[in-house]
């Protein structure tokens, strides 16, 4: 396949997006592992790693702006560069959630978690899988896959609600557990937002392929 100069540049930027996505996936996975295993050293590493993610995001943003300014891409290429720009921002925010989980783990310190972490790692796994598949959809320009990612958000939301109710019950039963329950609540919230942002990436992919902007995150809860 012969690519134009603009396309070559766009492929390079997209490669950087893939690397950034991989960093974010690892950051989330490590954040949850560290939380579960109460490994504060690992949590500190996750928090520190966010700087690398931020740096990468700025590098991508700069490449995009540079491309827009110097090459004046049109039509499909323009959609491409705009989609990549948005995805970079989404990924960076997801990185922030990983950092947030790392910070919560540090705040919890030596305290044991309120309950064994089973559903939260499952939720993290689902969110990471959504992120991975949304990036798969970007690589293969697969609208169907992107729509599947958007649909999967409902499962994460359901799990979120279940954990939320469970933690609420803990707090009602024993007000002394409020502090520890709140930590876990933040973690689930961060994961829920991560899944939402994966949906946003999938929507960007649909926009990139079809040129249509649509909000597929139908069951979006009010943000809090």
């Amino acid at each position, binding site marked *: 396949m012969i690519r134009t100069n603009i396309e070559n540049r766009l492929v390079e930027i997209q*490669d950087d997006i893939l*690397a950034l*996505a*991989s*960093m974010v996936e*690892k950051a989330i*996975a*490590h954040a949850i592992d560290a939380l579960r295993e109460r490994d504060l050293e690992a949590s500190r590493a996750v928090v520190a790693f966010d700087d690398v993610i931020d740096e990468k995001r700025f590098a991508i943003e700069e490449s995009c702006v540079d491309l827009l300014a110097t090459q004046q891409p049109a039509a499909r290429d323009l959609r491409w560069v705009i989609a990549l720009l948005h995805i970079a921002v989404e990924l960076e925010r997801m990185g922030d959630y990983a950092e947030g989980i790392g910070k919560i783990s540090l705040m919890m310190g030596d305290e044991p978690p309120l309950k064994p972490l089973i559903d939260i790692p499952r939720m993290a796994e689902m969110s*990471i899988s959504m992120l*991975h598949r949304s990036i798969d959809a970007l690589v293969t320009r697969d609208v169907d896959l992107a729509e599947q990612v958007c649909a999967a958000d409902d499962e994460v939301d359901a799990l979120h609600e279940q954990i939320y109710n469970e933690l609420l019950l803990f707090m009602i039963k024993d007000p002394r557990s409020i502090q520890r329950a709140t930590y876990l609540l933040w973690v689930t919230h961060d994961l829920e937002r991560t899944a939402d942002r994966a949906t946003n990436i999938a929507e960007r992919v649909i926009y990139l392929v079809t040129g249509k902007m649509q909000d597929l995150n139908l069951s979006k809860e009010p943000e809090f």
Partner: protein
Amino acid sequence: MRVPRTLQWRMTLVYTTLLLLTLGVASFYLVTYIRSTNQASLETRLEHEARLVAEATAPYFAEQADPGALHAAVARISTTIGARVTLIAPGGTVLADSAQVPDEMANQAVQPEVERALNAGVGVNTRRSSATNEEFIHVAVPLIARDTVLGVARVAAPAAQVQESIIPVFIGIGMVGLAGVALAVLVGYGVAARTSRSIVALTEGARQLAAGELDYRVQAQGNDETQELAQAFNRMAVSLRDLVRDHSLEQGKLAAVLNTMADGVVVIDGNGTIVLVNHAAEQILDIAGGDVLDRRFTEIIRDHNLLQLVARCTERQEVQHGEVEIPQWRRYLSVITTPLAEHGDASILLTMHDLTRIRQVETTRKEFVSNVSHELRGPLAAVKTLAESLSSGALKDKKRAKDFLRRINSEVDRMAAMVNELMELSRIESEQSSLQLQPLDLHPFLTEMHEENEPLAEKQEITLELALAEHLPCVRGDENKMRQVFGNLLNNAFRFTPKDGRISLSAQRENGMVCVRVADTGVGIPRKHLPHIFERFYKVDRSRHSEGFGLGLAIAKHIVQAHGGELHAESAEGQGATFTVVLPAEGETAAN
């Protein structure tokens, strides 16, 4: 029209052209020669006839005879010689003519032949007759009698005679030409066909060779250069086949090596496209089944640490080494990226070694050490406390002191038992423990095991069943070790089976192996614990500290494996558990 550029066509064309050219030149000279000869002989003939006419008509002039007689004579002569005869007075007046009335004719003095006849004795001229518009050759001679020029006698014949005499020559040449051309076409076509058949055969051979038909050989025809060419072609085909065979053999070896090696190998070209991936790499990177060749590495692998290694290798053109964790599959890889400079296009060779197992072993070892220390810490702490209590006064209270000593003794026994079990396990694992292998008849052996455990079953109100198939084959085994295995399994069964439960000990032959099953109706093993129950220190219920060390099943499994057999567990939570010992049969059936 485009001339077809086949050899046959061209050769025929050349032959024909050459033939026609030669024939053309030859016939040109021939016709010119024949025409001039014929013309000369006609002129000579006409001159002789003119002189005869002059001779014959001279008398009529002498007597001043009447024109009628002259006319008659002229007409007669004309008929005789078959030519036009004219008699002209020296002044040019026509005296008599065999074709026209003289008076109607113009003065002939101006005609060149008449003029020359009078001056030079003979005159020849060819011209078109104004009357008949036919070309005639005129020959005139003076009519002399007694040295007096009486007039001019002229004879004329159609020049067409000369042309007509050439026609047969033309026809002859034409016939020869036609025959020649036909022959040229035939011969040219034939010769060309012969040559071109060889060439067509060679072309077909080359085409077959190009299509990979390396066993195709060209049939050599004739004994000219084309045959040599065909032989050379066949020799080339042979060496080509050998070359290809050697090459594919090498390739096969390489592919076999690549696909059987445990390390993953991926080659990426300068554009970042995957050009080679071996079986192990597909497994390690979880890309098996997908068609990843010719796709971009970045899009398939999607791991920034790996990508970074590749990028650094491309940039610096030197070997890079790194350890990469792929969180999706919990894999740890040791990766080496090598620039393949000799490919000239900045290809990168990736070798991946899966460290996951090594990491797991490391983790297991760490866990083992911490488990052993944990297991020893409890009894040690108890001994320490009891000893301290004794030294700080309890020694005086005889009754308490006795109790404390008994407890110290039992804690030390516990530790000793554990250390013994650990040593046993380590011996079996390192295969240093020598098995006293001898034919073991399972029938009496299992019956004995059953009898030994009957009292315990009665005490716990559990039914202990024995179901042995008849004609059980012997196994080769160490009776003491086997006793340990089944003792362990039965012990576990008793421990986890509640009152009124049932434990069955059964044995039968299956596919040349002997299967001994210990099944209970106890609490069973939850699914998530099932894969781990043979691990050292693994306990399904960690809270039940006092009940063993979690080493029994590990030891049992190792003993069975040392016998060349297998130990499996099947269970579901609340549904009891079944442990199956599979041992190779000894061949001959036990004589019951």
